[in-house]
């Protein structure tokens, strides 16, 4: 049982990250906890097939992603690519001139942290259709490589790249809309677009 005890101890350090991503996937705390428990049980039972020295964190996220997709009957592998409007390139960057400067007086990095609330960022991610939300979570939030994400989702790397690109743009547009609703944006300050 030694190896399995090692599994529990090693895997437990990833539980908080798994929970945060599970929450963005399921959008519900109780379902997120169930999903993490199921992930650990599957990992525990499949531990014989886990190869020592491979990346335990990626292995757990792969199990969780697959469990989520299967359990929630996701369309991940047969996606409706049209379920997301096309957003222009550099959407948010091109509109930063419209943000109220009086609310933006810190260093650039702090500015970005101040500009959007935690809730807005969480909502922007959760508003993405699953097909786009899962790659964005695995990349932007968890930092997995295109190759790792492609393996987790069992889709080609090019598909991962295009879903990330479209998902990120849609998320930026959503963040811009939230900022507008909070009165942070004065669109008259924008240069007229051609």
């Amino acid at each position, binding site marked *: 049982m030694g190896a399995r005890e090692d599994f529990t101890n090693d895997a437990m350090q990833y539980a908080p990250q798994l929970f945060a991503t599970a929450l963005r996937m399921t959008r519900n705390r109780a379902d997120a906890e169930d999903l993490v428990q199921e992930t650990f049980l599957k990992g525990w039972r499949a531990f014989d097939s886990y190869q020592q020295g491979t990346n335990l964190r990626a292995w757990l996220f792969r199990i969780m992603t697959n469990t989520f997709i299967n359990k929630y009957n996701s369309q991940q592998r047969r996606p409706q690519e049209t379920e997301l409007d096309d957003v222009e390139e550099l959407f948010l960057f091109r509109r930063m001139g419209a943000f109220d400067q009086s609310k933006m007086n810190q260093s*650039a990095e702090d500015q970005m942290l101040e500009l959007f*609330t935690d809730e807005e*960022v969480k909502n922007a991610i959760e508003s993405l259709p699953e097909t786009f939300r899962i790659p964005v979570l695995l990349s932007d939030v968890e930092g997995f490589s295109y190759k790792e994400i492609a393996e987790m989702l069992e889709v080609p790397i090019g598909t991962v790249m295009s879903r990330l690109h479209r998902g990120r743009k849609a998320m930026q547009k959503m963040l811009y809309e939230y900022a507008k609703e909070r009165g942070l944006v004065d669109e008259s300050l924008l240069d007229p677009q051609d």
Partner: protein
Amino acid sequence: MADCQETLNELESYLDSELSEGRANEIITHLKGCTDCQGAYEFHADLRTAIKTKATNEELPEGFLDRLRDCLGDDVLGND
């Protein structure tokens, strides 16, 4: 050498650390000499940091880790 359009097109892959070393160096060289692209790069890098920080700012439910250990313990005993 990468021009502005190429740099902006590949900014995302660069931020994802997915460019070859040679190509990444061409992008870095361009960024050093172009304040417009450097601004776009910093904006997206800061945005990425903000998203990651905020999306992971979650408190675990009370007793979460204990329940997780318990469910693995139960599985060992065969009463799942």
